[in-house]
C-alpha cells in the first residue's frame, strides 16, 4: 500500500478551497472553524475545513484515522511529534538571522537533533501503536522505511556525536570591572549551594522566586561571542567537528513528513476541540453517511457553536433528537420564541456539514446525508430598510436558492417573511413550500405559521417546548408534536430535592 495522504485515500487529491462557504455565518460554522483552528494558525488549516466531501469512501477513510487518533496514546505521540516539528522550523528560522559563526552552527545542529528525534520517536511509537486505519498503516510503512535509509541514519549519528563533544565543554569566567578571562573549569565549589545550606533551617513554605529570567532573546552580544571564541580555542577538536557537520548537511527535512505534519493537524485540532465538550458530558459519534439515502437522524445532537459559548458558563447545553424517514423531507419548527428553534435549525446544518468533512458529529448515533450544496436564508432582525424593499430582497434570494437547489441539496430557512403581514406571509410561505416539496430536498424551516407543518406527508412538525407547570420556563427541547405532555406536578420541596427520600439519596452515609 503506497502512502498518498493522511486526508485522502485516493491519488487524485481534491484541491483545497480557500474561500469560506456562503452559509457559514448563518450556521455559525465560522465560529466553530475559527475556534478549531485558532491555536494552529501557522498550519493554515481552514482550507481543509472549507472543502466538504461527497465521497463516502474518503469520509470513511478519515473516520478510520480519526478513530485511531482517539486513542490517547497515539494522540500523545502525534502531539509530541508535531511539537518537535514546530521547534525544527523555529530553529532553522533562527539560523537565518544569527551573526556569529559558532552560534549559527550551534542552532543548526539543534534543529537537526530535534528533527532526528521527532522522526525516530514517531517511527518507534507508530510501530508499537495499535493502529487500524489504512491511512496510518500506510504512513507507518513509509516512516519505518525512511528511518532506515542511509541518509537519515548517518545524519542522526553524526549530529549526536558532534553534540556530545560540545556538551562536555566546561569553562570558567572571571569577571572584574572592565575585563574578563576564560579558562578551563577546574573543579571550583558551588558557592550558591553553600549559602543556601547555611539558611536551610529557615525554610518555610514556598516563597517568591527571585531568579530573574535573564534570557534576552535570540542573538549573542559581542562579549558572549568573544567568550565563545576563547572557548573554541580551549577546545579546538569539538569545534572542528561542528564545522565539518555544518558543511556536510543542508536541506534535511523529508517532504512527505512535512506534508503529514500539516495534514494531521486537521484531526488533532478537531479532536482537541470536541474533547472539551466530551468532558462536559456531551457525546459525539461517527455518522453513517450516504449520498443517495435521504433518511436521516441524530440523537442527542447540539449546536457546536452555542456549546462553545456556554463552555465557561453554568448553563447546560440542551441536546435534541430528530429523524426523517421516507417520504418525510421537511422539518417545520414552530413554538414559543427564545425556545431554541434557531439553534435546532443551525445544528441540523452543522451536523451535515461536519459529517461531510469526515468528522465525528454531535450526537450519540446519527445517519446523515451527503449534500451537494447547503442553502440557508436567515432573517436579519435589525434591518433598517423599508419592508417592501426587504420583502423583495427576500423573494429574490429565495428564488435564487430554488433555482440552484437540487434534490440533493439541504435548505435551512429561518423565520422568512417574519416582517410582512400575516396574510402575505401565509400565502408566500405556502407557495415556497410547494416548490420545496417538489424539489424533494432535505429542509428545516423555522416559522410561526402553524399550517406549514401539516401540508403533506413530506412535512414533519416539531415544537419548542415549555415546562407545563411554569410556562415561562423554556426547556430548549424541540420535540415532534405528538410527543406526550410532560405534566408532572412537583411539590415545592420536591423541586428543591428535600423530601425524606431525596435527602437520604443526596447525603451519603
Amino acid at each position, binding site marked *: 500500500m503506497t502512502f498518498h495522504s493522511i486526508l485522502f485515500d485516493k491519488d487524485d487529491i481534491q484541491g483545497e478551497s480557500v474561500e469560506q462557504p456562503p452559509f457559514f455565518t448563518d450556521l455559525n460554522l465560522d465560529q466553530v472553524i475559527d475556534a478549531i483552528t485558532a491555536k494552529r494558525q501557522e498550519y493554515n488549516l481552514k482550507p481543509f475545513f472549507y472543502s466538504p466531501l461527497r465521497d463516502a469512501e474518503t469520509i470513511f477513510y478519515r473516520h478510520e484515522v480519526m478513530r485511531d487518533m482517539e486513542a490517547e496514546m497515539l494522540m500523545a505521540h502525534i502531539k509530541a511529534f508535531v511539537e518537535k516539528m514546530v521547534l525544527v522550523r523555529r530553529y532553522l528560522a*533562527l539560523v537565518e538571522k544569527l551573526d556569529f559563526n559558532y*552560534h549559527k552552527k*550551534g*542552532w543548526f545542529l*539543534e534543529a537537526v537533533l530535534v528533527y532526528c528525534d521527532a522522526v525516530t520517536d514517531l517511527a518507534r511509537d507508530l510501530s508499537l501503536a495499535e493502529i487500524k486505519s489504512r491511512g496510518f498503516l500506510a504512513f507507518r510503512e513509509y516512516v519505518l522505511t525512511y528511518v532506515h535509509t542511509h541518509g537519515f541514519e548517518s545524519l542522526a549519528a553524526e549530529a549526536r556525536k558532534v553534540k556530545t563533544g*560540545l*556538551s562536555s*565543554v*566546561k569553562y*570558567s*569566567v*572571571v*569577571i*572584574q570591572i*572592565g*575585563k*574578563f*578571562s*576564560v*579558562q*578551563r573549569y*577546574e*573543579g*571550583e*565549589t*558551588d*558557592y*550558591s549551594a*553553600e*549559602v*543556601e545550606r*547555611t*539558611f536551610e*533551617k*529557615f525554610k518555610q*513554605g514556598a*516563597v*517568591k522566586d*527571585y*531568579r*530573574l529570567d*535573564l534570557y534576552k532573546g535570540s542573538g549573542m*552580544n559581542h*562579549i*558572549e561571542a568573544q567568550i*565563545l571564541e*576563547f*572557548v573554541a580555542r580551549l577546545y579546538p577538536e569539538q569545534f572542528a567537528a561542528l564545522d565539518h557537520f555544518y558543511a556536510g548537511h543542508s536541506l534535511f527535512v523529508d517532504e512527505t513528513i512535512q506534508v503529514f505534519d500539516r495534514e494531521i493537524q486537521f484531526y488533532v485540532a478537531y479532536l482537541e476541540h470536541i474533547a472539551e465538550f466530551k468532558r462536559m458530558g456531551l457525546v459525539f459519534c461517527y455518522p453513517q453517511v450516504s449520498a443517495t439515502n435521504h433518511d436521516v437522524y441524530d440523537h442527542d445532537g447540539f449546536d457546536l457553536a452555542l456549546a462553545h459559548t456556554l463552555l465557561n458558563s453554568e448553563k447546560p447545553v440542551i441536546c435534541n433528537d430528530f429523524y426523517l424517514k421516507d417520504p418525510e423531507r421537511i422539518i417545520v419548527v414552530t413554538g414559543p420564541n427564545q425556545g431554541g428553534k434557531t439553534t435546532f435549525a443551525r445544528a441540523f446544518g452543522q451536523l451535515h456539514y461536519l459529517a461531510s468533512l469526515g468528522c465525528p458529529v454531535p450526537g450519540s448515533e446519527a445517519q446523515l446525508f451527503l449534500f451537494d450544496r447547503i442553502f440557508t436564508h436567515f432573517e436579519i432582525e435589525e434591518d433598517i430598510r423599508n419592508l417592501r424593499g426587504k420583502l423583495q430582497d427576500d423573494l429574490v434570494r429565495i428564488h435564487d436558492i430554488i433555482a440552484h437547489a437540487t434534490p440533493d441539496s439541504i435548505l435551512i430557512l429561518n423565520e422568512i417573511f417574519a416582517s410582512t403581514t400575516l396574510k402575505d406571509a401565509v400565502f408566500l410561505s405556502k407557495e415556497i413550500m410547494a416548490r420545496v416539496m417538489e424539489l424533494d430536498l432535505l429542509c428545516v424551516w423555522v416559522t410561526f405559521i402553524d399550517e406549514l407543518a401539516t401540508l403533506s406527508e413530506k412535512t414533519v412538525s416539531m415544537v419548542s417546548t415549555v415546562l407545563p407547570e411554569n410556562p415561562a420556563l423554556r426547556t430548549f427541547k424541540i420535540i415532534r408534536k405528538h410527543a406526550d405532555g410532560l405534566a408532572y406536578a412537583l411539590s415545592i*420541596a420536591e423541586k*428543591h*430535592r*428535600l423530601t*425524606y*427520600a431525596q*435527602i*437520604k439519596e*443526596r*447525603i*451519603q*452515609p
Partner: protein
Amino acid sequence: MKVFLMHRDLDFDPKQRLPPNQADLTQDLELTTLFDAMALGDKFLFEVANQVTLSSLGEPDAIRYRQEILKDCLKNAAIVREIYQIPIQSTQNKQKHWLGIFSRHPGGILSSAIEMLEMFVGLLRKLKQIADEHAGEFESEGFKRFFEMIQQELSEDYFTVVENHLKELRFRGGVLLSAELGTGNEGANYVLRKANHGGQNWVRRFFARKSPVYSFTLHPRDDHGARALGELKDRGINLVANAVAQSADHIDSFLNTLRLELAFYIGCLNLAEQLTQMGEPIAFPTAVDFSERRHSFTGLYDICLALTMKKKVVGNDVNADGRELVIITGANQGGKSTFLRSIGLAQLMMQAGMFVPAESFSANVCTGLFTHYKREEDTSMKSGKLDEELSRMSVIVDNIIPGSLMLLNESFAATNEREGSEIARQITSALLDRHIKVLLVTHQYELAHGFHDKKMDNAIFLRAERKADGVRTFKVVEGKPLQTSYGKDLYHKVFETED
C-alpha cells in the same frame, strides 16, 4: 525552623478554605461580636480569630494540643505578649527603613537581601534571649518544643557563620563563574564558584595556574560591552541572589508565621480578660470523638450576648449525652434562640481549641456545623419566603456529611403549620438517619409533638422556662412540648407597657 503552635506538625494555613456556609454561621451565631472582642480593634487579630474559629479542628487530640498552649498563655501572658512583639518589630523596621526586595537585577536583589538579613539577625538574637530566660516556665508540648528549637538552631556559632557570609557576598575581588555550552552553543548553567584556595587573594592565585588563560579588556568607551559584561555577572550571581533573598523571605515568613500563630492566642487572652472582668466563667471543654454523642454542660451562656450587654447573663445546664435530636420549644422571647446560639458558639470555640463560655462543657466534635435560621428579611424578588428557606436548606444538604451538627431555628415556618411541620419532619428524620445531630428550635406544636409521640431514645425535649406567674426566666429546662407558645403573653406585655 517551624513555629507549630497551632498544629503539632503543621503550619497554620491562613488561606485554608473556610466552610461554604461561613457567611450563614457568622450571621446566625453573631460571630462578629466574638471576633471584635478578641481583636480589640486590631484588624489582623480579627482576621486570624475569624479564620481559626471557622476552620474547625476535627480531632480531640489536636484540640487538646491548643488547649495546653492556651493554658500556658493564660499563665504567662506578659511573656507571650513580649514574643508577639518580635515579629511586629520586624514589620515596623521594614517600614521605617524601606527594607524589602524590589530590585529587578540580581545585584540589587542581593544587596537588599543582605540588609534584610542583618536586621533579622538582630531580632532572632532577641528571640533566643527570651527562650534562654523563660523556657522553663512553660509546660505545654507546643511551647516546650518551640523554645528547644530556638535554643538548638540559633547558637552563637551559627550567628558567626551567617555574619561571615554576609561579608563575603559583597564580592570585593571579582566574580568567578563556571559555564557550559547549552543549546545553540550559548553559555548555560552559569554557576557561581568559590576559588579552591580562598582568601582575599584568590584572583591572583587563579591566574597563576598552568593551563591557558585568554583575557579580554574592554575599550573604555564600550558601554554596550560593559553592560553585556554586567549582564553576564548578573547571570552568575542570579542563583546566589535568589538563595539569599529567599533566605530573607524564609526568615520573614517564619516571623510572620510566629505572628500569625500567636495572634490567635493573643485574641484568646484579650477575650479571657474581658470575661474575667464581667465575672463570667470560662472552662476548657472535654472534646470526644465525633462517633460518640455527647452534649452536657453547666452554666453555658451566650458569650455574644454577654459581650453585647457587658454583664453576666443567664447560663443553662443540660445533659443531652447520648441524644441525637434535641427539640427546644416554649415561650417566644424565652431564650430559645439564645440557647441555640450558645450551643453553636461553644461548639466552634471548642473545635478551635479555645475555652468555652461555661462552668463545664463536654461534647463530641462534629464534622461540620450548619445553621438554618428563619431570616426576617427576604430581599430576593423572585422566590417566595418558603422557597428561599428551602433553597438555603438545599445548599446545606449539598455540603453536610454524617457526623455534622445541624441547628434549625424556626425553619420552614413560612407556610401553614401542617405543611411546614411535614417538611421539617421529613428533613429532620432524613438528617438523623444520616447520623447528623439536630438541634431544633420551633414553636410549631405539630412538629415537636410528632417527634415526642414517637418516644425516641435518642431525642430530648427542652422548653424555655416560664414560671406559673408568666414570668420568663430565660432558662431552658427539660420538658415536653406544650400546645401554646405564649404569644399572648408577649402581646399583653407589649401593649400594656405602651399604655
